[in-house]
């Protein structure tokens, strides 16, 4: 009898075990859930990040007691962020939901609860109570999740931010900056001097923090154990841009880093952008006018602005606002960054169906012919994607014969130094300026100058030095608040809430932070010396 009982119990247990295992969703036979662990984690990720069930339909939920919402409007990621560590917004504080938090008991000043099991997790999701039975804040939706999806989500959360990201150990945090070999050595030096000085200072100022936790109250351990020595790696790439990914991979294999910061290369930032995305490696504020303008899914690279594309969009917004008629004539030097500006402008113009005439400069260019083409009737506007030397030549050949059509000059090609525009252009040309106005920049520049002087660096390139210094401030701010949670996604989640850092911006006006916002400055000035007016333009407004 006992043996029969044992057999029956075994069958029952086996049945329960099978019943609790993930099984394919019936809603759409063409899209079934595979039971393999990696597929379940991927399904969990889709539920968490996209609010989608296994059959592709949106997750259903109820929030604040009676508001029915769908998962695509109300994903877990929305509030708990990509890292799962949550955080504050306005008057609300979103709790951490990563494995490291859920699977351990919590006993602190704010909460006491046992560790989550799958069963208590499922209850939390469907009933809105924690394992102790305490109700959640009603802003936490309750979800209608089938069991396989519930298990997949729990499985995904277990893997979320559950071990430190690569590039950090108990004593060191590794960061890299990317430079291309063909970059002007002075430019490279200007950037590296700032990076090295900032990191040396930081390491010097926090050199004793690791020891302090041994001789103080409990919170000293909590705080001071989080400190790491920063180690900077210079990843120099050379040769064709197509080979950079391989070179970066080699550097990464030798020493993984937690993040990339600043950097300067010739040409597009795209190879580094792609590397950052593939490695899920934060890339903070590179010095580039040619960022990759991808999808919001490109989470890992944060840029100052859209660079020359922003200038092009601002230009065409201004032209449209002034009802400009006629052809847009663009002058640029072939093979330079100016050509990229002209191409970006052409792309924007195509969308608006404006006619563009390009005048590329080659060696021994016929400036008289170029001048004629810019002052002839039918020209709606002239755009000069030129550096200081070529502007000088164009101004020389123009004499006082300015085009009757408006003339625009790119400020990025002058490194923001629009004082370099020669007469008569400086009296008439509109300047597309995606940087702070000189008068608004003085206070921050003076601060930078003092800091540089303290570190025996002369201020020779306010743009590169200012941008690099601000990138360091942002890195420092993010790492300060990361405490001991060294997860790359958490670092970026924190930066998304770094709105107050815009106060410290040296080169760019009105930085705005936020999830999915990967270009901090959204607009540019049109400086018009003829009317002595500066007009702030947000493309698309």
């Amino acid at each position, binding site marked *: 009898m006992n043996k029969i009982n044992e057999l029956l119990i075994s069958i029952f247990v086996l049945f329960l075990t099978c019943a609790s295992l993930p099984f394919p969703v019936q809603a759409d036979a063409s899209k079934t859930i595979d039971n393999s662990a990696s597929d379940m984690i991927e399904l969990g990720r889709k539920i968490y990040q996209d609010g989608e069930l296994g059959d592709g339909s949106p997750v259903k939920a109820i*929030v*604040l*007691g*009676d*508001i*029915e*919402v769908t998962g*695509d*409007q*109300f994903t877990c990621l*929305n*509030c708990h*962020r990509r890292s799962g560590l949550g*955080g*504050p*917004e*306005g*008057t*609300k*504080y*979103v709790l951490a939901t990563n494995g490291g938090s859920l699977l351990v008991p919590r006993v602190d000043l*704010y909460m006491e609860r046992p560790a989550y099991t799958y069963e208590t997790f499922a209850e939390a999701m469907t009933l809105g109570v924690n394992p102790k039975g305490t109700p959640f*804040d*009603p*802003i936490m939706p309750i979800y209608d999740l089938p069991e396989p999806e519930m298990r997949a989500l729990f499985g995904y959360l277990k893997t979320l931010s559950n071990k430190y990201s690569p590039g950090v150990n108990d004593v060191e945090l590794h960061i890299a900056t990317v430079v291309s070999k063909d970059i002007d050595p002075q430019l490279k030096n200007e950037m590296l001097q700032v990076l090295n000085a900032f990191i040396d200072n930081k390491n010097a100022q926090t050199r004793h923090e690791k020891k302090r936790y041994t001789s103080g109250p409990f919170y000293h351990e909590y705080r001071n154990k989080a400190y790491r020595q920063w180690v900077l790696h210079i990843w120099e790439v050379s040769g064709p841009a197509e080979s950079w990914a391989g070179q970066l991979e080699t550097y990464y294999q030798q020493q993984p880093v937690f993040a990339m910061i600043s950097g300067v290369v010739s040409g597009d930032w795209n190879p580094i952008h792609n590397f950052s995305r593939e490695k899920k490696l934060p890339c903070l504020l590179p010095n580039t006018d040619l960022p990759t303008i991808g999808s919001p899914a490109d989470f890992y690279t944060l840029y100052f602005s859209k660079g020359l594309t922003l200038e092009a969009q601002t230009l065409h917004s201004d032209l449209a606002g002034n009802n400009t008629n006629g052809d847009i004539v663009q002058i640029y030097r072939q093979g330079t960054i100016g050509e990229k500006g002209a191409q970006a402008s052409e792309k924007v113009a195509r969308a608006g169906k404006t006619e563009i005439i390009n005048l590329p400069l080659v060696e021994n260019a016929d400036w008289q012919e170029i001048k004629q083409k810019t002052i002839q009737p039918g020209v709606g506007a002239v755009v000069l994607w030129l550096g200081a030397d070529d502007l000088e030549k164009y101004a020389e050949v123009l004499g006082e014969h300015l085009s009757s059509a408006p003339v625009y000059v790119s400020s990025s090609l002058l490194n923001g130094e629009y004082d370099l525009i020669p007469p008569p252009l400086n009296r008439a040309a509109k300047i597309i300026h995606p940087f702070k106005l000189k008068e608004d920049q003085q206070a921050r520049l003076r601060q930078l100058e003092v800091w540089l002087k303290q570190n025996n660096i002369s201020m020779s390139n306010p743009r590169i030095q200012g941008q690099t210094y601000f990138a360091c*401030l*942002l890195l*420092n*701010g*993010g790492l*300060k*608040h990361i405490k001991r949670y060294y997860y790359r996604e958490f670092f970026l989640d*924190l930066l998304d*809430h*770094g*709105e*107050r*850092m815009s*106060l*410290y911006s040296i080169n760019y006006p*009105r930085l*705005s932070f*936020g*999830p*999915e*916002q990967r270009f901090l400055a*959204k*607009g540019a000035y049109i400086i018009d010396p003829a009317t002595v007016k500066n007009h*702030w333009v*947000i*493309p*698309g*407004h």
Partner: protein
Amino acid sequence: MNKFSFFLILLLPAVFSCSHSMHGSMNHEMDHSAHKAMMEKKNSHSVSNASYQVPDVVLLNQEGNKINLKEFLENNEPYALNFIFTTCTTICPILTASFSHMQRELGEDANDLQLISVTIDPEYDTPAVLRNYSQKVRATRNWTFLTGDYETIVAVEKAFDAYTSNKMDHHPSYIFKTEADQDWVRVDGLASGSDLAEVFQLNSLF
């Protein structure tokens, strides 16, 4: 207690305040807002009467059309207004969802109710971004999303007592105006769709 101990006790708050200020600039309020949020009463909202001076400014709707806010509001009573931004992580999705649910709760009573959502992140929330957002939240045709230049939006926020210097610190609120009342009705805090419908019905003459 000897003098030295007394001195130490006096010194303690100063020591703690210094250790906080040493945290530096970025998000230094972050930890404090966490404390504040933890201590707040949950699911609380309050209803009050308010009087506002609507600024005579021009904004853009999600189609990119210019809208004179004063005229638009005067011509579209009754209306309900809130402040949101499209990349907001926690509060705005609820503000938006509760508007939507209030509409459903009101049924035919909501036919004349104009919903207005003004962005507090105008530089990112261009008309095109707002258009995408309105599609994502399946906004009905009598729901207008407004943006504008930064200074104008700040003026609108201040006029409705909704301004915070950092958009991440924004407070949830809903503002109602019906033809029946000279004043506005303001709901502070997050409210459910049925709570909002009730507030609206109590303050309307149908």
